[in-house]
């Protein structure tokens, strides 16, 4: 089967009168890595949560491995869990504080592959993410942020998913640790062929993890395409603003201000068009 492992079609999510996600759609081929970039309020996290089954879309479908998901059905959720896993931003809170790391990693194994020897598998997983077996006996609070994020990845890998949704997975980490985790993610993708949906506000990080990217703003996708191309020749004024806002050598704040004016102008120009549409 060579079709996409994940296909999202015109996803909409409304919270009361507020539209968080507005017509998002994309396809993710197996082993591919897709970035979803946006600022707060762009709807990127809501999209990730819909993919993971934590929110039900108002309309639109999520198709995993050729099957349209129904988050309400318990059977479906378990089927989905075996294929799609999620890594959260906060590596601190994503573990039951009472359980040791090894116990936490073993739990999804018990659910999805009962009756097998989990101890060997757990140490294998720990090794795969670069944690010593000794740390398996530690409680989450005794681990550093980077170690906890490694453990979270190990826990997700235990289910051998085909898709990993990473919601700001390295945002809370120090730069030196962030580079370690990004390296680990690259290795895992090469070795295990897992597809990534990498949600982040950080274009630079997205560049290092993904091949294609979506840029989201106010719940809509404003630009999509190969990540390098978006960075080299941003087509949408918002993407340009986003890029120029990132500090670096020769950072030009005047240019950022110019970008902002261009974006405002584009917004004004777009408004009547939107009103004319049915």
């Amino acid at each position, binding site marked *: 089967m060579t079709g996409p492992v994940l296909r999202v079609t015109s996803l909409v999510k409304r919270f009361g009168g507020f539209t968080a996600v507005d017509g998002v759609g994309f396809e993710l081929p197996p082993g591919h890595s897709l970035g979803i970039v946006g*600022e*707060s309020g762009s709807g990127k996290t809501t999209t990730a949560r819909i993919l993971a089954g934590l929110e039900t879309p108002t309309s639109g479908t999520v198709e995993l491995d050729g099957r349209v998901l129904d988050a309400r059905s318990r059977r479906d959720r378990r089927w989905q869990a075996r294929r799609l896993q999620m890594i959260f931003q906060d590596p601190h809170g994503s573990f039951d504080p009472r359980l040791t790391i090894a116990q936490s990693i073993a739990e999804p194994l018990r659910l999805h592959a009962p009756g097998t020897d989990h101890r060997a598998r757990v140490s294998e997983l720990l090794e795969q993410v670069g944690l010593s077996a000794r740390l398996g006996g530690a409680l989450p609070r005794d681990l550093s942020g980077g170690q906890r994020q490694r453990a979270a990845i190990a826990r997700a890998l235990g289910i051998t998913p085909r898709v990993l949704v990473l919601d700001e997975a390295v945002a809370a980490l120090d*730069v*030196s640790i962030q580079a370690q985790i990004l390296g680990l993610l690259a290795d895992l993708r090469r070795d295990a062929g897992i597809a990534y949906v990498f949600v982040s506000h950080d274009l630079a990080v997205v560049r*290092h993890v993904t091949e294609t990217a979506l840029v989201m703003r106010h719940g809509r996708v404003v630009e999509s395409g190969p990540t390098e191309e978006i960075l080299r020749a941003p087509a949408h004024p918002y993407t340009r603003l986003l890029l120029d806002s990132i500090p*670096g*050598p020769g950072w030009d704040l005047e240019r950022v201000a110019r970008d902002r004016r261009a974006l405002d102008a584009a917004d004004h120009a777009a408004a009547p068009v939107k009103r004319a549409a049915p």
Partner: protein
Amino acid sequence: MNPDKTDKTDTVLEIAGLSLAVRGTPLLADVTLRVARGETVGLVGESGSGKSLTVRSALGMLPRGARASGSVAVAGEQVLTASPRALREIRRTRASMVFQDPRAALNPVRRIGDYLTEGLRARGVPRRAAEARALDLLERVGIRDPRGALRRFPHEFSGGMLQRVVIAGALATEPALLLADEPTTALDVTTQAEVVALLRGLQREHGTGMVFVTHDLDLAAAICDRVYVMYAGRTVEEAPGAALFGAPGHPYTRALLEASPSVRGERAELRAIAGRPRALAEAPTGCAFRDRCPKAADACAADVPAAIAHGLSLVACLDPEGTGR
């Protein structure tokens, strides 16, 4: 209040040999930092490096039970030995601080107008004048409809707008020194650019000295005249902002740059630094970075390296980058 408010010194913050320990746990060792009038100084480091502690010491905000040695002077006035009264005076007139999370820095049940005028009112400025001043400040930090903003509450503003309000408050007293502790970390990147532009503009206008604390080396190098890089409670490098990208002196600075992903230029492979950042209490003897340093030699374990001149920078390393061996 203070008759000789005009100080002739050019140095608005001078930290010399500052060491800090709490109940036997060392947190800072021998930190030295100088900020001149009108200068922007970056303080960069990962968690546990002591950058926030350092900047807080300038206002005398030390952790409970802390023992400090060395000297901290704001516009020529000693902070560590200051009486509570003198400390209040420094905080009120000489130095202001902007925090990471503007929402946590503001009292949620008080109006923006109250927040901006209470400092001035406490100094005896009449109500009318204080309000006029608050209006002027809000206008200058780019708040639309400043008159309406005075009557609104913090929750009615976005994070970026609220940080502008906090900056307006910090500048209300026209301080000689502005301490900004990760002022843009909680903000979106486009908002960050706005706030940074605002800070720079206001600072140039008033000749305020600014300390900009951040974990983002790129940001610090882009906007700061000079940058101090901290690791495990010590300063490991002091360099002009522009020199930091081109010629990092300390292996740690270089490693940080190589570990930071960038959106510009060719896509370069990220090189991770082994291990995790250390706090001073858990750092190895000698050079604190030597357990993660690719160039570490036996000599690094002997003593904490002294800062030596390296190009335009001061580097605390026995074998700075680019000199070869």
